[in-house]
């Protein structure tokens, strides 16, 4: 036994908030990888080798799936928002420094490394790890307790069969999976599922782990029992984790009910659309939660870590996936706190004006157009904060212009669209909107014609946009011509 295990033992024995020490009698040696006798005769082997097929070519995941950190989250080192300093996870996994460089000579029981128990069920057994994190703890800059302050409103498609309109942290199960791949389909399994829920004054994170494929049935049934019919909070889970788990349940002939499900990724994409270039959980942790993960097993290496564990039964690398998964789950709770706070008070609750645009968009999704308008107006009116870079106010104006027009506040709409049209760069949409407002709402044909003419100067003849403006100009000229005798009469 190497020093790592000793260290883990030591940590486990004195941490008050640490999970109960693993009950020794329950420990079971992970079965060594089954050895299949090579039944391949030499001739067949030669034929197969001649084909040169079957390199297990690992196809790189499509870029749009890479949201869990991974190699592509590196090249966007954005400066942190002012006033935010990074902190490591306060309640880190006690075995955080289990190093892949540990001894490999003997299979090291994963149970001991991660403090797991073997959970026996009617349908088999699997490994389970459980940790209670006090709600008073900080995750980065966020006190976890804050997640209880505000419910998060649900967008219509998130509401589930019960049409639940909002979700509190106490109702929800926070769910994240580690899978054998990102491609989905029936051949991808979730070998590690982390589920977190609030229990008393702690956030309980329970992790379900398959030691090998035959554990899956027991794992899935226990998971289904534990989460019952509670609503879900996830990060990208609406399109990835939940459909994948549902497929796994179906493959194991088990039916699971639909429920309300809030996806923090979609909300985050809206809320920080203009201030963050990437919305991977890693980036949100740094920039929104102020969390420094420290040394972490990147998501894209996790499938390989499990396959490696299956073959070698050595737990050193896969133990890192437990930590990765737990931080993911706890980060969701912290992010939930942040999203709830912003949506509770969208006007005063947001710090950087750039976020106003995203907040307004999310409010529109939630069916709150008045709030969205106010949010944008405040954003435009706010003086630039000291020390922050000047922000591009045009997207705010553009959205506000559309909203005012929709609310028939034509004068305000005109103000915003004119401000955009008078900008340095030619703005085709703004010219069109100004011309439309003058023509149809204010019946000011000369002004409409003037703005149409200004647009035509910027456009290339023969393009569709040009034709549209030319058509408008011609119509305006006809109208003006018709009006002349009338005006004489008047």
């Amino acid at each position, binding site marked *: 036994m190497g020093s790592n295990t000793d260290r883990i033992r030591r940590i486990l024995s004195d941490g008050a908030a640490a999970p109960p020490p693993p009950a020794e009698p329950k420990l079971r040696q992970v079965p060594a990888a089954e050895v299949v006798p090579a039944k391949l005769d030499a001739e*067949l082997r030669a034929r197969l080798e001649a084909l040169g097929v*079957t390199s*297990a070519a*690992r196809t790189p995941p499509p870029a749009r799936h890479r949201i869990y950190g991974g190699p592509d989250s590196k090249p966007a080192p954005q400066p942190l928002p002012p006033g935010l300093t990074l902190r490591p996870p306060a309640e880190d996994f006690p075995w955080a420094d289990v190093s892949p460089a540990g001894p490999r000579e003997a299979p090291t029981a994963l149970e001991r490394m991660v403090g797991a128990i073997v959970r026996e069920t009617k349908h088999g057994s699997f490994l389970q790890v459980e940790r209670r994190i006090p709600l008073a703890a900080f995750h980065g800059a966020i006190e976890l307790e804050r997640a209880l302050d505000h419910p998060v409103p649900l967008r219509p498609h998130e509401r589930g069969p019960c049409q639940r309109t909002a979700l509190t942290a106490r109702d929800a199960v926070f769910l994240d999976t580690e899978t054998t*791949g990102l491609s989905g389909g*029936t051949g991808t399994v979730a070998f590690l599922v982390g589920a977190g829920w609030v229990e008393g004054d702690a956030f309980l994170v329970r992790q379900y782990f398959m030691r090998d494929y035959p554990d899956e049935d027991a794992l899935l049934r226990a998971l289904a029992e534990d989460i019952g019919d509670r609503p879900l909070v996830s990060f990208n889970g609406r399109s990835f984790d939940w459909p994948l788990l549902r497929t796994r349940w179906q493959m194991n002939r088990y039916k699971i009910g639909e429920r309300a499900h809030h996806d923090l990724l979609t909300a985050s994409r809206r809320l920080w659309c203009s201030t963050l270039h990437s919305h991977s959980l890693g980036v949100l942790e740094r920039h929104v939660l102020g969390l420094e993960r420290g040394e972490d097993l990147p998501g894209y290496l996790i499938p*390989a870590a499990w396959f490696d564990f299956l073959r070698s039964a050595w737990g050193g690398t896969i133990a890192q996936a437990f930590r990765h998964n737990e931080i993911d789950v706890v980060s969701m709770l912290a992010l939930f706190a942040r999203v709830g706070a912003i949506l509770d008070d969208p006007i005063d609750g947001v710090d950087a004006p750039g976020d106003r645009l995203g907040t307004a968009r999310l409010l529109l999704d939630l069916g709150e157009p008045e709030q969205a308008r106010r949010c944008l107006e405040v954003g435009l009116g706010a003086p630039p904060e000291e020390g922050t870079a000047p922000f591009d106010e045009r997207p705010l104006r553009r959205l506000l212009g559309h909203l005012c027009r929709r609310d028939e506040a034509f004068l305000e709409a005109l103000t915003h669209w004119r401000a955009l049209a008078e900008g340095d760069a030619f703005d085709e949409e703004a010219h069109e909107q100004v011309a439309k407002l003058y023509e149809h709402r204010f019946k000011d044909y000369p002004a409409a014609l003037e703005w149409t003419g200004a647009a035509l100067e910027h456009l290339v003849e023969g393009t569709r946009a040009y034709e549209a403006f030319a058509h408008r100009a011609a119509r305006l000229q006809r109208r003006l011509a018709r009006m002349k005798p009338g005006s004489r009469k008047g």
Partner: protein
Amino acid sequence: MIAPRGPEDVRAVIDALVSDPGYRDSIVAHQIQPAEEPKYAPLPDDLDARLVPALASRGIQQLYTHQRAAYDHATAGRHTVVVTPTASGKTLCYNLPVLNALLADPGARALYLFPTKALSRDQSAELLALMQAATGDDAGDAGTGSLLGTAVYDGDTPPSERRIVRDRAHVVMSNPDMLHAAILPHHARWMRLFENLKYVVLDELHTYRGVFGSHLANVLRRLRRVCRFHGSDPVFICSSATIANAASFASRLLELPVELVEENGAPLGERHFVMVNPPIANPALGLRASYLGVARRIASRFLKASVHTIVFCGSRTVTEVMTKYLKDLFRSRVDRAPRVVGYRGGYLPRERRGIETGLRDGSILGVVSTNALELGIDIGTLDACVLAGYPGTIASTRQQAGRAGRRQGASVGVLVLRSHPLDQYIADHPEFLLDATPEQAQLNADNLQILVSHLKCAAFELPIEDAEAASAAFGEAEDVQALLGWLEEHGVVRHTGGRWHWSADSYPATDISLRSVTSTNFVVVDTTRNQNDVIAEVDYSWAFTTLYEGAIYMVQSEQYHVDKLDWDRRKAYVRKVESEYYTDAMSYAKVKVLQILREGLGRREGKAATASRVSLVPTPVSPAFGEVEVIRKAIGYKKIKFYTQENLGWGDILLPEDIYHTQAAWVTVPPAIIEALGVPASVPQSDLIDALHGVANVLHGLAALLLMCDGRDMGVVIGDQRKDYFLQPAIPGRPAEKPPEQFEPTIFLYDQYSGGIGLAEALHPRFGELLVGALERLGACDCAHGCPSCVGPDLEVGPRAKGLATRLVSLLLAGLQPGEAAAPTSPAEASGSSV
């Protein structure tokens, strides 16, 4: 709209053609099949009552006998294959049992598979109309929650609609590729379909020959295990064009016993089939009149007589050129000019739909098409069909000719033969086409490479139980347990708890293509008047030879100049021009042998080889087969004047190389044979090269005949790969590279598809037959010094080529193992014996 022609009008046009002194001598065969009366059967008693008025509203009071037979088999749960000609009401054979089942149980589901996307759209509309008539429901879209609905699920189905298709469509119309890559690997999402799957319809079964069929057989193995998992056991209904072995082919594809329905009950008018061999225009050079010219004149005759005509051409460029010629025919007519259109892959879907409608309602008089219209896309029936060149197989010829053939009245198919060895072989032996049964469709579901690929997909879809691996679920030819063990060694599956689990971070179906389709298409953007409209799409592999800068790209015979090709963004920017020429790309290929899989023909050493035909001690010749890398590069293009085919100039093509791995069969000419030819290395080697070109030309043509494939499925290249020297097409102003010292030329015949499709593999053991056929073809040709029908035109290959090529073939033949050469079989006999 053109007034439909009466039967006697079409007959008169045919009579005029065959009695025209200008053609009389060129007609090598004229076959007349008499009209056939319809054979009816009553509607089945157990037919859902709602279907009777629905059928009546479409003019159907009773069924043709084959429709009734198919219905009876299918409803009794027997797998069925229906083999009847074009336009015999084939679709009702499967639509009727399927609809009947759906009306009885709206929870039931059916899956239709078509080889192409266009076919599924067509058939979906037709079935939907019948459904609506039966349910009295006018919104049968799958999305609207109506009584019954069909939906197409293919690459064009928007993601937002996919879920609706999965959950609601009663009949899902798709293709084998989608089933393989998108449906089966996600079968849990398709639970509704797989739990309730009652019928699987496979249309155009004959298209699933060769590698495509071998893949499909494995996809169907996977489909059946997924159905078993979800508790369904569907009945398969297949339809096929006439092939020699439809029943056994279907049962090998499905690995199920099938009932054959082949007696056609639909009426047929009198059908004429005429084979025309263009006359020799220049006896000295052995040049025949252009087959395109002859085809054009015959098609013009038909069109001028207002006979609805389809012209099939062998390539996209020829299709466009022919379209232009036939459009020009009516250019002088200002008003009400009859419509002549082109049709080929690459046209945008809406344009193709428009043409199909125009053909059905008769508003289009003539259409020029590639084999894209050979399949059952509904274009109604036409009066006349002109085949510009032998399409490559008997089955294709019948399918194409079958596009002309109404239920009443006469129709005609005219095959105009090219001066290509293959076509000329048919001119010599017209009975080959007229009497022989069409090809047998072949497939080999147990091809090791294909089987292993699909085992991976199967393990991904559902863990493979030990008992299943030991069963015949994946055929009986290979030890599936052993193969899975091998996959486990490579870390993609894991054996545990008596099951083989997929155990890799990848999605195996994406790495396995059922046919050689390359990924990204090019779009052609028309920049005329800054419109930037997309006017066409071009497959990746076609872009090299059609979208180079300077090319004239034709759509509907309109000419567009390619101004700019943005290779990385896969866009070609074109501008409309009035050009007097079209362009033809020249490319060359190099072949690098990666691995020799087989060498020789199983020669028994020690036996003295003797050959009667040549009086030389034979030098051993050893044909080989293996994996190769083909590097294809387009190097330049010719500008060819319309009508006169004059060469107006040349241009360079600067495009990257197209590199792919495939399989090849090849034979190296040993130095002793070159010496024996009497053209030693010191002598100007053009004679040797001419002879090699000549032999390659004959072998290439005959290989297609021997293998029943399209000539374009195989490429041919001559070179010495150890010295990296390959013969290239000559370009003026660019001196041809001299062959190296001690040139050891090899003739490579390779599959022109990435991965190979099994042609070279099939060719390799038949090299002897191939050489015998070549010798016969060279001997039978009347020309003096070589013509396009044998070694290639005299002007291109030089005067000595024919003699040298004949000697070279004899020497190669003598060098083969005597047992192979001593049983000379002509290609006709060879193919006849396999029928």
